[in-house]
């Protein structure tokens, strides 16, 4: 159950996308996401979706993984979809019943929003599927380095992120274990009303917090024992290098972005 959360989970492989420089991947993903909000025409959306689909195929990520990462946002999609349909009332009416009226513009808006959100999640999932958390934080640290000038604690932030990422699987595993142990003692986590269920979480949350604090303390101690004192003068084991593949990927993304923006100006109704 807990293992269904796939966002932020690395899917190891050796594809072209896996081998790209993580900095390039982050920047290109961000460009793609911004781009999604500039698209107004369905032609543009079609290009964006196909582009993302091709990327998934290149990365050899099974379709099942995309669906799994989209599952948690289904309620949000439905909710925003309904809101959009109900409150956007401009344009030709499509359906009217009492005070409820749904216009073509509303439907259009709902569909556009849904495509945007789905693409956004799928694109950022692709980034985390093809990039190990370690290289991801390395890349973020490098990308944010200029902010050091204004005394922004870039290194500390990156370290916190990598520690957090490192401990997500551990905590998930730990939660699983504690849940099993309490279930073995007859804890009932699945039935009862809201209050009862909240109460049933106590035997899981308390051990979980205690072990998280214990781990934090041990880790801090271990880091200090190895003379960690912040980012000053630290060299890195893994140097990031950009290569020809990164240039190619950047060019392709720029061309696709150009095509999508150009589609906005096409004299087409959709």
């Amino acid at each position, binding site marked *: 159950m807990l293992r269904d959360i796939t966002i932020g989970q690395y899917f190891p492989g050796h594809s072209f996308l896996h081998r790209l420089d993580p900095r390039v991947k982050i920047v290109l993903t961000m460009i793609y996401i911004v781009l999604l909000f500039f698209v107004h025409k369905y032609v543009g959306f079609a290009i964006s979706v196909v582009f993302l689909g091709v990327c998934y195929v290149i990365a050899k990520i099974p379709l*099942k993984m995309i669906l799994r990462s989209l599952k948690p946002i289904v309620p949000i999609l439905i909710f925003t979809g309904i809101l959009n349909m109900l409150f956007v009332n401009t344009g030709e009416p499509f359906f009217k019943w009492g005070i409820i009226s749904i216009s073509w513009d509303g439907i259009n808006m709902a569909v556009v929003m849904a495509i945007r959100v789905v693409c956004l999640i799928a694109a950022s999932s692709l980034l985390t599927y093809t990039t190990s958390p370690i290289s991801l934080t390395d890349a973020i640290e490098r990308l944010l380095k200029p902010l050091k000038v204004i005394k922004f604690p870039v290194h500390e932030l990156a370290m916190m992120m990598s520690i957090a990422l490192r401990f997500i699987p551990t905590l998930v595993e730990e939660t699983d274990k504690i849940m099993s142990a309490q*279930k*073995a003692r*007859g804890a009932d986590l699945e039935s009862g009303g809201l209050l009862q269920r909240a109460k049933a979480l106590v035997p899981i949350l308390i051990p979980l917090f205690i072990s998280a604090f214990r781990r934090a303390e041990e880790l801090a101690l271990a880091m200090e024992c190895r003379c960690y004192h912040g980012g000053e003068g630290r060299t890195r084991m893994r140097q990031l290098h950009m290569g020809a593949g990164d240039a190619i990927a950047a060019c392709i993304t720029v061309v696709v972005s150009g095509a999508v923006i150009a589609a906005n100006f096409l004299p087409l109704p959709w």
Partner: protein
Amino acid sequence: MMIKIENLTHKYSVGTPFEKVAVDHVNLEIEGGEIVGVIGHTGSGKSTLIQHLNGLLKPSEGKVYINGQDIWADKSKMRQVRFDVGLVFQYPEYQLFEETVYKDIAFGPRNMGLSESEIHDRVLKAAEFSGLREELLEKSPFELSGGQKRRVAIAGVIAMEPKVLILDEPTAGLDPKGRNKILNQIKNYHDQVGNTILLVSHSMEDVAMFADKVLVMNKAKVFAYDTVENVFARSEELKAIRLSVPQITNVFHRLNEEGYPVPRNVYTVAYAKRKLLAELEKEGKLHA
């Protein structure tokens, strides 16, 4: 309480690159009333196997029967199965959560819906079985030492009076004295209650000393399931899968090969001592 496992297979992380068969088509029948030692290398699937016995893990394939009942046939009876088959996890001290030791031990019995006086009786009895002094009961479990916490966790399962008690490496990370104390207490408990106990362990010595039967897991399969004597008699095969026999057995094999008149089927130090003394006495009489 009879346990029957039929063609049990368990796969982790199905459908990802990390898919892993942890238990592979296992068949097993365990009669009631014995202590069964479960041994095997790390990662051989011991913990996975035992978590199927009270329905914490669902088989990918195959069936688990407790007293002839398929435990997955009727999910509403699953809680009863968990009360009948008590499972103490590896490092169980991390599951403690209540304000006092007493309340923590009472968690299981309370979930069973017992009366307050029955709960009280069971907590006291379980604390005694696991060697917890009464004045500890009102302390916070987080103030105790590691070994004491372990006892509290074991008491928490014993208090449910399970007909089958499964302990996953109850002595991991304890010093030799603490280990022996806990194992002796488990043995005592078994002698008094006469239930079935499955004891996962990495120590051949412990298994030889405390178990009636041994279940050897190797690479997700059952390698052997037989009496202690019969299993350790296959020492060559065990060595082939890089498991050992008790060290005292090795010593006696060696002595036997060197021509000394000692038996090969020696598995515990106590038995070895008796045999040696008897042998020496015989020799002494011959010389006299």
